[in-house]
């Protein structure tokens, strides 16, 4: 999809971020003991937190950074006592090679645009059926219609928009049946993937995560859901299955985010369930974790269906992007 003369533009975003951080650690711009936090790095790199997390995990594997008794990572191998240096990475003059910067920017236009539109198009569907007009989307984003068509084509590929018989781009509506179907698919695929993933799960990271539940305010049900996917389920050695799981979850997690924006309170029960699940994964036969995952998904589906109903009684103003026209 992404066409560019810059060879690095094809490289995954986390690789680019990892490359920048690695070089700045080796050159000493990022000194030993410097506290690396996901948020500020994402801001410097103009990206979401997800690729930053992957980049940091890679650097951790390489031994360039280590965990400590606090949020984030410390630069350096660990083992020796260093005083954590807490400074905003944005104040440092990070060395970002031009070719990497360009690649980030190129991807930036596309990826940045894509991720935002994907989230907006997915989450609006709870509010009904919408039409997307290419020119309006292009104007809204300030990009060309070529970029918009690429974006829409990718959304179509992921099942988030479709063409109507009159060739209009249509998104939604998200019905209870769609949600039930998606949860049924999750119940079929995710426990199966978890079983396959057994030997490949990143156990040390799961342990570390378990230690943070209950103390780290950053831990939300959504955070745990993503972590379960990345650290455990997505480790299954079957890329096609993992891809299906990811795209099946897409709509559900976007709607989840939309409901949180509407004020859905934090759900402690779900956090407890994730804690039990992660504990089963690390300390018990994988079969028990798979069964528990199935149980957790059936409960989540019921709650999800009930919570969606609130949308019928709220004022929708401002709940969706301006290029989405309610049908």
């Amino acid at each position: 999809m992404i066409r560019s003369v810059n060879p690095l533009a094809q490289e995954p975003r986390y690789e680019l971020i990892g490359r920048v951080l690695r070089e700045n650690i080796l050159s000493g711009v990022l000194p030993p003991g410097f506290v690396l936090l996901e948020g500020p790095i994402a801001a410097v790199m103009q990206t979401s937190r997800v690729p930053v997390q992957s980049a940091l995990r890679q650097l951790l594997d390489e031994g360039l950074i280590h965990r400590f008794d606090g949020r984030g990572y410390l630069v350096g191998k660990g083992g020796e006592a260093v005083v954590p240096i807490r400074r905003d990475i944005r104040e440092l003059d990070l060395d970002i090679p031009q070719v990497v910067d360009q690649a980030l920017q190129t991807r930036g236009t596309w990826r940045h645009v894509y991720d935002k539109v994907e989230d907006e198009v997915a989450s609006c569907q709870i509010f009904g059926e919408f039409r997307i007009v290419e020119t309006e989307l292009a104007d809204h984003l300030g990009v060309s219609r070529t970029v918009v068509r690429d974006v829409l084509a990718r959304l179509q590929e992921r099942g988030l928009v479709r063409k109507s018989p009159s060739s209009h781009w249509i998104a939604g509506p998200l019905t209870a049946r769609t949600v039930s179907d998606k949860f049924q698919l999750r119940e079929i695929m995710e426990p199966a993937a978890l079983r396959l993933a057994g030997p490949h799960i990143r156990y040390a990271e799961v342990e570390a995560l378990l230690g943070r539940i209950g103390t780290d305010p950053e831990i939300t049900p959504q955070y745990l859901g993503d972590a379960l996917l990345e650290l455990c389920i997505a480790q299954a050695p079957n890329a096609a299955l993992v891809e299906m799981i990811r795209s099946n979850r897409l709509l559900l997690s976007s709607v989840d985010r939309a409901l949180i924006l509407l004020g859905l309170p934090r759900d402690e029960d779900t956090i407890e369930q994730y804690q039990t699940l992660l504990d089963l994964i690390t300390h018990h036969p994988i079969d028990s974790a798979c069964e528990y995952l199935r149980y957790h998904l059936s409960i989540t589906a019921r709650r999800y269906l009930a919570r969606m109903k609130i949308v019928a009684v709220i004022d929708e103003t401002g709940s969706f992007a301006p290029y989405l026209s309610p049908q």
Partner: protein
Amino acid sequence: MQDDTKPQLATPLVVPRRRLRVLGTSITLVDPVRERARADLGFDIAFEKKDFPTCQRWAAMQPDSYDVYEQCFHNLDIVWFWGALQPIDIGRVPEWDNVSDLVKLGGVSKYAGRGRGDAPAKKLYVQPGGFLGPKPTRYISMLPTVHNMDSFGYDARVFGTGPDVRPSWAWLLDRRAKGRIALVDEPAIGFFDAALAAEATGEIEFADIGNMTIEEINALMALLEDRRVEGYFCGTWRDGIEAADLAEGGKVAVQSMWSPVYGKLGKARQHFVESAPSEGYRAWHGGASLSRHLRGAELDMAYEYLNWWLSGYAGAVMARQGYYISNPQRTREWLAPEEWAYWYEGAAAPRDLAGPDGAIVVKTGERRAGGPYIDRARRIVIWNTVMDEYNYAARAWERFVRRVNQGVAA
């Protein structure tokens, strides 16, 4: 700082009067109830009265703005699962044993029909994992109070009178009333009046009328749209005053109705009558819930108010507008024998009977349609419901209502 050497006058201790904030609708937030509760309980009670959708939204999203929430069991999917309420401990409700089986079991007797959709029994007890269900536990989501079995009202000059006339929900789509049909505009209520009508005419059969599929919703909306284009509907209404105006002004020959509206009718009362539909009733069950923020003394105060609701007086006020209470025997003590006989037993009124505000709502000799409570309650076929596809249905319904009221041609 005070100068300790000077003698001080004792300042009177100012204790702010305690106040309970109740969020609800016009069904239960009526002045006689508030005045009496204030006098009996010794604390202030502030009523925040909202229309149905607004009430649900507030209840779910602003639980800090109220202490007690009064609406219906079918609203709980929205409010309970948004985490706005806390469970009620039935150990703190002395009247619990006298609350009727209609709520606890789902029917007034073992053999009575249960009704489809959001029967209160399905939403009553708090189950493990925070779900709601019929299996008894110590905690409930909502204290059951007022309820009724709704039907439609019709012009007897159009549909006839006498023992051979068998009112049917099909009349809401009947050609004899073409251009003079109105429905209540509430997707958890009027939608089911329309659905019952469509089933009664034989045009649509729902696998489960209480939880329709997308195809069934589409079929119902297509049917309503066809009738609308043909000019069957003259309007929709949202509250009892609008409903009374439609009937009184002679605009409707048949429409969705609520019990208190009959008492508000003037000369239309002669011919506009309550039906006891041959297919059965659409019922609803109200109640009161506790906001999640309540603790300590505030929580105690809320429990006092909830228990007061079941102590008889409120049930009598409700009875005089045609609504039943979940523990009728306590309310009986507060009704005149003639009132009890008319409202609960289906007997003819031996004298004129007054409504909650003192105005006469029942004339001597009148008899309540459908007969005694037990007969009416046995014939519940559907409850007001917020079904799984509620979002989809509510949007489709809203489009239909807009067209009816704007008179769009096609």
